[in-house]
């Protein structure tokens, strides 16, 4: 089927996954307030949202399999890049929903609002991935961010959660302002907010550079905030630590992926011809993020906070792909996002189960002897930690390898060296947790009871660990999909 936007109905078809998921979100919201048992466990709402995510995945698959668009200029892109990114968001959200099931019941959170906010945030992410217009990028970003601001503060009986929400909201709104001002300046310079038209204007040199370059700088600042690149990362540790743990997993995996996907499309497709101007900025952002993220993570004594810094560091690795800017790096970025989502949510899932009954239990000492008390969870956690560190045989290693390949093709020697060296540093703090789990005794005064792990959480851990190992040993199939997804993405402008 070919979408040529001759009728308005084509827009609805092009947005099929978003439409399905929005409807699912509204159904979950209403199901949460109707019915008698308010304040109940809300498991059925979780399963309902999972069904919504599955339906959106089916719609996404339908677009992937049999729908093409006419040209590459419409506001909504129907290309493999967007659809592949959608899989990543949907997978991350599905994992987050499943690991939330018991958490929401335990902490007595309002289930209807919780799950529907996750679904609406995913709709925003999918809009960001599909956006071929800067206004849609902004709308998607806001839709995603507002949902996540509320989610960060969702555990309202907890002061830290409220602090996280407020901090994220104030700084996020500020960053959105930068982004919007950047969009305004780019519009002023090129006369259009359509990314394709922007690219044409930039290429033909009709864009007013005095407006374009400040606009590009502001856009970079706005996106750098969302991906928590280093000078703009200050909010990340506090927000990630304060937010409810399943929300942190969702933020670290899906929100970051969405920001990177939009970042890539805007910068490589729309502003690719001024890459000599923004390349050095991103180069420094990337180098600073890798170095600072990894070095600060080394001294963390709280595993949740350590994972927050680790997610900053991973943002730095991903920025290398943007600096490289070739097809290998862009495909590597998608592959990395897939692996990163899976392993990150997996690690947080273990943390959620381990932090039984409360937000405590995430200090590193609490993991003493964890592996011997809960061998299954211990093995899963070790796999995720090794993958986050980039150990050969895991998805994290392969993902880093393809990022490096892209960087080397672009002759970014110094960045490649920094990437490898900081990865070596990261082994220390990831393996320290594994060391505590297997080589240390349990801290004094803790009950050595085995944790009761819900079956659904077990399933998530099993699938995540399976995917991590699968992408580590046989990266062929997902990598081919990722590389196919970016094929021709950067060359949308004729004669580039």
């Amino acid at each position: 089927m070919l979408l040529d936007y001759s009728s308005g109905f084509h827009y609805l078809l092009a947005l099929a996954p978003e439409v399905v998921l929005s409807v699912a979100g509204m159904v979950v919201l209403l199901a949460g307030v109707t019915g008698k048992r308010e304040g109940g466990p809300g498991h059925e709402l979780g399963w309902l949202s999972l069904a919504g995510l599955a339906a959106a995945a089916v719609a996404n698959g339908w677009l992937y399999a049999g729908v093409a668009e006419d040209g590459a200029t419409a506001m909504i892109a129907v290309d493999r890049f967007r659809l592949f990114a959608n899989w990543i968001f949907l997978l991350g959200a599905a994992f987050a929903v499943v690991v939330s099931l018991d958490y929401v019941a335990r902490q007595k959170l309002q289930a209807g609002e919780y799950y529907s906010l996750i679904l609406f945030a995913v709709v925003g992410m999918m809009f960001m991935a599909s956006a071929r217009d800067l206004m849609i990028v902004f709308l998607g970003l806001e839709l995603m961010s507002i949902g996540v601001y509320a989610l960060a503060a969702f555990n309202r009986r907890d002061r830290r959660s409220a602090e996280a929400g407020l901090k994220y909201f104030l700084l996020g709104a500020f960053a959105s302002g930068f982004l919007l001002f950047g969009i305004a300046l780019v519009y002023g310079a090129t006369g259009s907010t359509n990314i394709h038209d922007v690219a044409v204007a930039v290429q033909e040199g009709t864009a007013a550079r005095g407006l374009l370059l400040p606009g590009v700088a502001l856009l970079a600042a706005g996106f750098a905030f969302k991906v928590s690149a280093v000078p703009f990362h200050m909010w990340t540790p506090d927000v990630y630590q304060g937010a409810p743990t399943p929300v942190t997993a969702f933020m670290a995996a899906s929100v970051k992926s969405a920001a990177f996907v939009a970042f890539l499309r805007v910068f490589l497709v729309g502003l690719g011809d001024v890459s000599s101007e923004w390349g050095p900025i991103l180069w420094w952002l990337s180098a600073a993020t890798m170095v600072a993220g990894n070095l600060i993570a080394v001294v963390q004594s709280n595993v949740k906070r350590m994972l927050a810094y680790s997610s900053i560091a991973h943002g730095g690795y991903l920025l290398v792909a943007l600096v490289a800017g070739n097809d290998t790096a862009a495909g590597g970025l998608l592959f990395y996002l897939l692996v990163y989502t899976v392993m990150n949510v997996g690690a947080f899932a273990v943390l959620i189960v381990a932090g039984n009954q409360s937000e405590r239990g995430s200090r590193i000492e609490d993991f003493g002897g964890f592996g011997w008390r809960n061998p299954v969870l211990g093995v899963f956690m070790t796999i995720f930690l090794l993958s986050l560190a980039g150990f050969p045989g895991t998805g994290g290693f392969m993902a880093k390898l393809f990022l490096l390949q892209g960087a080397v093709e672009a002759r970014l020697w110094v960045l490649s060296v920094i990437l490898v060296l900081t990865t070596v540093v990261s082994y220390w703090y990831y393996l320290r947790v594994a060391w505590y789990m297997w080589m240390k005794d349990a801290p004094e005064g803790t009950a050595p009871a085995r944790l009761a792990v819900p079956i659904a959480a077990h399933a998530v851990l099993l699938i995540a660990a399976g995917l991590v190992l699968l992408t580590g040993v046989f990266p062929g199939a997902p990598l081919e999909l990722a590389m196919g997804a970016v094929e021709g993405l950067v060359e949308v402008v004729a004669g580039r």
Partner: protein
Amino acid sequence: MPRELPGRSMTKSYAPILVILGVSILNAVGMVVASHVLNPSRPTPQKSMPYESGMIPLGDTRARFSVKFYMVAISFIVFDLETIFLIPWAVRARELGWGPFVAVFLFVVVLAVGLVYEWKKGGLEWD
């Protein structure tokens, strides 16, 4: 193709706004300065109070007030925005045809879902 580049014509069309801005700033500053220069200054305790013939302000301005007012304000904004979108559509509904009708219909449905949620949640009850 990119649309017409903003150049001299755009600057020119903004010129009247700048003129209005300048005149209004001068006017405001002029009034304050003129009254300050021209009027005789004989302050009395009554005159130097914040509200010369009103109530004497008591207590902190950062008083707590019920979250119910906040709920009303939020509901108001929602329906206010609905009006902003509906009226321009309604004015030209006949010429616009079915496409925008469907779009507006979907918009109202989404708002209705929000209203049902608020209602069920008890956001419309004062007590």
